[in-house]
């Protein structure tokens, strides 16, 4: 949760990417088995055209969709829940981060970077991912990058940094659930675009920002009455992003949680401090209540909040949010070209995604 529709790059990736994928993975195991993930034909083709015996890295492999019999695929993901439910033959899995790839320099023949880079919240971090990929590639090896496009066949997003809803339930049409075809079903696509929420990504938690955050939380105390109804993303607080107010007294806009929270978080100065520095928060709180009581209270709050969310998710009554940075035309290719030793070979728009293939070229810099 944050105020003013603004959030740091670190927390947006933690809350709206890593944690939410872990949570969704547990539901997918229960709800959609056997899952039939979308296979992009161009990615499949890229894998299939690699020579026999090639070492292929799938950075952010998720459900490990792209396997190969004649090549050796190593799949990386940050999400343990996704990986452990994706084990299969013909692919080796590893928990690892796209910005810190645990592979020696110049050792792999090809890299897949499919639907990964749009989950990183700053240009610097997106470039770092590509730099890491380039480091691992041998000279002449190719990388295929897929990322969601700002320009969609049937509409445009309101901004490039957005929270996109992911509904557990689908609206029945004529008594039948529609097939989930994300990019081909325009009705759903338009719904998704319309329901996505712009966010401002800030570069780090400065003391000033934190303090203004605390202030706005205090101001908004009046709104924070206990309730058991779900937060509605279409309420005015979320959608009127473009309303020109031009004054400091503009209504506070809150981001929806990545997963819904049915109990309000205690909004006090103490919990504000705790979020900023858990140690300091606890130490201050011990002046008021003993430490055991504090932990017990925190724990019971977390358990209550989580269990209600779980129950509602089972009833398919909730909306989850994931963070995306959607790329404008040319942006992904330019970012790739800005990386030393990567040269763009092709750039195309495929079903609402930018698809870039780049090759590692020899540079004069010789690494030790």
């Amino acid at each position: 949760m944050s105020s003013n529709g603004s959030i740091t790059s670190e927390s947006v990736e933690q809350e709206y990417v890593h944690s939410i994928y872990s949570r969704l993975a547990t539901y997918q195991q229960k709800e959609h088995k056997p899952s039939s993930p979308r296979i992009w034909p161009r990615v499949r083709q890229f894998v299939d055209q690699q020579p026999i015996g090639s070492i292929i890295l799938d950075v952010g492999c998720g459900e490990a969709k792209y396997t190969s019999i004649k090549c050796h695929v190593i799949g990386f993901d940050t999400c343990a829940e996704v990986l452990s439910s994706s084990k299969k033959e013909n692919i080796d899995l590893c928990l690892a981060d796209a910005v810190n790839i645990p592979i020696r320099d110049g050792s792999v023949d090809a890299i897949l970077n499919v639907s990964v880079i749009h989950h990183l919240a700053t240009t610097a971090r997106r470039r770092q991912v590509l730099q890491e990929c380039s480091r691992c590639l041998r000279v002449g090896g190719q990388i295929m990058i897929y990322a969601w496009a700002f320009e969609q066949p049937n509409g445009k997003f309101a901004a490039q940094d957005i929270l996109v809803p992911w509904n557990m339930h689908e609206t029945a049409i004529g008594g039948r659930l529609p097939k989930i075809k994300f990019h081909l079903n325009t009705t759903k696509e338009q719904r998704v675009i319309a329901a996505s929420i712009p966010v401002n990504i800030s570069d780090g938690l400065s003391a000033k920002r934190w303090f203004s955050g605390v202030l706005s939380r205090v101001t908004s105390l009046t709104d924070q009455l206990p309730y058991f109804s779900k937060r509605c993303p279409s309420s005015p607080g979320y959608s009127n992003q473009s309303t020109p107010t031009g004054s400091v007294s503009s209504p506070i806009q809150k981001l929806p949680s990545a997963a819904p929270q049915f109990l309000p978080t205690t909004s006090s100065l103490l919990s504000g401090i705790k979020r900023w520095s858990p140690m300091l928060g606890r130490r201050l709180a011990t002046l008021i209540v003993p430490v055991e009581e504090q932990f017990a209270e925190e724990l019971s709050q977390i358990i209550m909040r989580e269990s209600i969310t779980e129950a509602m998710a089972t009833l398919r009554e909730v909306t989850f949010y994931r963070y995306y940075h959607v790329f404008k035309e040319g942006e992904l290719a330019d970012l790739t070209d800005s990386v030393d030793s990567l040269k763009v070979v092709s750039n195309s728009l495929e079903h609402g995604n930018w698809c870039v293939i780049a090759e590692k070229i020899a540079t004069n810099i010789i690494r030790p």
Partner: protein
Amino acid sequence: MKLFVHNFMSSRFLKNVTVGYPLELTVKQFVEKDIEFDRENMIVMLDKIQYEALLVAAAAVNQSDRIPAEKPPKWDELSDDQLKQFHHLLMNIDVVDGELICPETKTVFPIKDGIPNMLKVDAEK
């Protein structure tokens, strides 16, 4: 984790690590699978392999005797039987439980259920 994966892994991404290779390997449990042998595929892979790291991996599963202590000069001169020894080590042996250890900082990366955890946030906790 098949043993060939160890050959490509490095802990260079950790703070103050310059090479981070080869990773030390301890194996608490492994299984032997029966992956189909393909001569051409194996030779291509062996060309990409760092021999010193392969020796580390072979020792970790007590199977150093399968392969020569020195790197053979030409892979395609080996017989199928010799290549199958390499194939067995690299492809058939699957580490289920164990540890990868950074040679410089001694940071431990656990392997659980066949999946190594190389996350920097977990390693630097």
